């Protein structure tokens, strides 16, 4: 390309050698630790305070069910990385399959969360307005769910582009990598939430 040749001296370069958008994604993700950290802190502060209106979140957790949906999200990281790998091997068909699988596993997790919230509200009797611990629980898991939802939408967009164009171009390849980074990040946040909020949940002395 003539113009490109003329502009060698003025080429778009990365001083650090890292792609701009990739660096941007990692920088953004590092700030998300502070975001989820604040939510987890709220929950940890309130879950053990005595004297709240019942129930406390830990009284109504359904560990087997949450383990199942957590597992779905964990495995979606595998399908995500396989999609990325397939694209690197220029296997467009496999890329699409794994993208769709990732979006589906993400949807299973989201469906699980909708079910969990509904159960907690109707059967467990714990609403956002029941006590501060419940408020913190719904806000934390809700914001995480919102992140998953955004991820699913981005995955489906990539899938749609791939279907329409018949392939994912080099530029979309980077998009897939970025969506993947975001997706894995949302997964590691859930790894922390699953342990700290569910498995290690405690109730104040005298409750339960």
């Amino acid at each position, binding site marked *: *390309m*003539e*113009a*490109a040749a*003329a*502009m060698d*001296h*003025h*080429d*778009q*370069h*990365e*001083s*650090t050698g*890292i792609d*701009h958008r990739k*660096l*941007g994604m990692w*920088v*953004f993700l*590092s*700030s*998300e630790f*502070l*975001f989820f950290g*604040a*939510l987890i802190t*709220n929950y940890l*502060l*309130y879950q053990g*305070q005595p*004297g*709240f*209106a019942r129930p406390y979140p830990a009284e109504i957790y359904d560990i087997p069910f949450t383990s199942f949906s957590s597992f779905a999200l964990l495995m979606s990281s595998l399908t995500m990385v396989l999609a990325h790998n397939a694209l690197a091997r220029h296997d467009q068909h496999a890329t699409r399959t794994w993208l769709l699988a990732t979006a589906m596993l993400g949807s299973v997790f989201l469906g699980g969360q909708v079910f969990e919230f509904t159960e907690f509200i109707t059967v467990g009797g714990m609403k*956002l*307005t029941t*006590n*501060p611990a*419940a*408020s*913190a629980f*719904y*806000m934390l898991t809700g*914001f995480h769910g919102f992140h998953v939802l955004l991820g699913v*939408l981005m995955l489906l*967009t990539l899938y749609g*582009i791939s279907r329409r164009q018949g392939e994912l171009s080099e*530029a979309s390849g980077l*998009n897939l990598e970025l969506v993947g980074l975001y997706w894995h990040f949302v997964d590691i946040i859930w790894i922390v939430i699953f342990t700290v909020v569910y498995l290690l949940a405690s109730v104040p002395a005298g409750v339960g």
Partner: protein
Amino acid sequence: MPDGGWFGYQPNAGPFYSPGTAMDYWALGVQFLGLASLISSVNFIVTIFNMRALGMRLLRMPVFVWMSLVVALLLLFSLPIIAIALFMVTFDRQFGSLFFVAEAGGDPILWQHLFWLFGHPEVYILILPAMGIVSEVLPVYSKKPLFGYPAVVFAGAAIAFLGFGVWAHHMFASGISPVAQAAFGLSTMTIAVPTGVKIFNWMGTMWGGRIKFTTPMLFAIGFVAMFVIGGLSGVTHAVVPSDWQQTDTYYIVAHFHYVLFGGSVFGIFAGLYYWFPKMTGRLLSEKLGKLNFWTMFTGFNLTFAPMHWLGLQGMVRRTAYYPPEAGFDFWNLVATVGAFIIAAGVLIFMFNWWRSKKHGEPSGMDPWDARTVEWTTPNPTPEYNFGVAPTVTSLDDFWHKKYAEDSEGRPVRRPEAENTLTDLMETGINPPHPIHLPAPSYYPVLLAAGIPLVGWGIIYHTSFVGKLLILVGVLVVASAAFGWSMEPLEEPHDEHDDSEPSGGGYPSAEVDA
């Protein structure tokens, strides 16, 4: 009863004590501003790390760029905290959650922690850019390099780092434990060390220099002097027992105006006078500029100095009425007069700006005999910035292109300096090679327009209109995001006439490859 203030202390800003929608607008408005700042901070960090000119090593960057980087990092790590805190307020007010409702077991002190975890880094977000500007201005009008450049840079980074560990000094009167008070008092005092380093470096820069008292220089010196006063009164709040006396009095108001007005605002004015030629190709009037400075300087000190003693006499903040027997009247009158003088100063500035934009003296390329690379482009700066991407070989690169040193280290203007300037002007106006700017897009504007719709919807979500607004807003945001992601990143080349630069209106160095 008035609603909560900008600090949103709970439960005063909660649904019970602040009914109505005012605090909802506040919480969501700050939320959206925060989102915008967060995205910009990512942009700044990537730009500064990744798009430096050839040879522009980190320790060759102008201090202003360094401080912008540090500020972006502060924003990056502090905004998510206030985002959550504001969401909690919105949820409490709109959806009945109980985060700060003490009757139900919520803890209003949690708000103070989260607010100041953000709020203290925020004050450095306000001051560090001004420190960067002053570090650019002082060397230019002292005809000397910045004294101790690495120390100034590291001190800025240290201030930012320490700034994350001092937030509870805003909460000494809120009943936090004695250990916490001692720890946060100490950590706050340590910040005075890197700040002092900077002050000494600025003085060292001026020491022995050939100082020209231009308007930017006056504002920069004003900054240093006023900031020292504000910094010293700041140390007095780090001492816990003395802070208990000062909390919520006008002494605090005096302190933070000395750092934010005498500090940040003076720094910004120094920058406006200094870089006005880069924006317009003309100089602001020096006569009006000096009048501007001295009016603002006098008005500022008349307004805020008396607040020190008013505060120590017990004049508390956020109070509607003070009885005459309290004896606050005289100094409040002085402060009021001072405030009008500040206003006069700002009016002078506005007039100066408006007049100089059209009738100011043309600045030429290098009106200040400047030191840094931004002065190697024509004034006003073309939208593509540099006609040819510069290569940097040293700190103060532009200066070294113009000056050599004699045997005693004094600067001597190179004979070829004028030719260098003419060449730079020529390549700046007529780039030898075509420059492609990124394709402009309407989608970001559309996306941004959708966000307040969602916000209004949330505030009125119990009504039909509110629900409708949320739906419409989400739809606008989603479709704009989708359209944006579908747009090609690079403009197709054949749409260009390669013989002349394309004016996309984006002052970005990003070019198609």
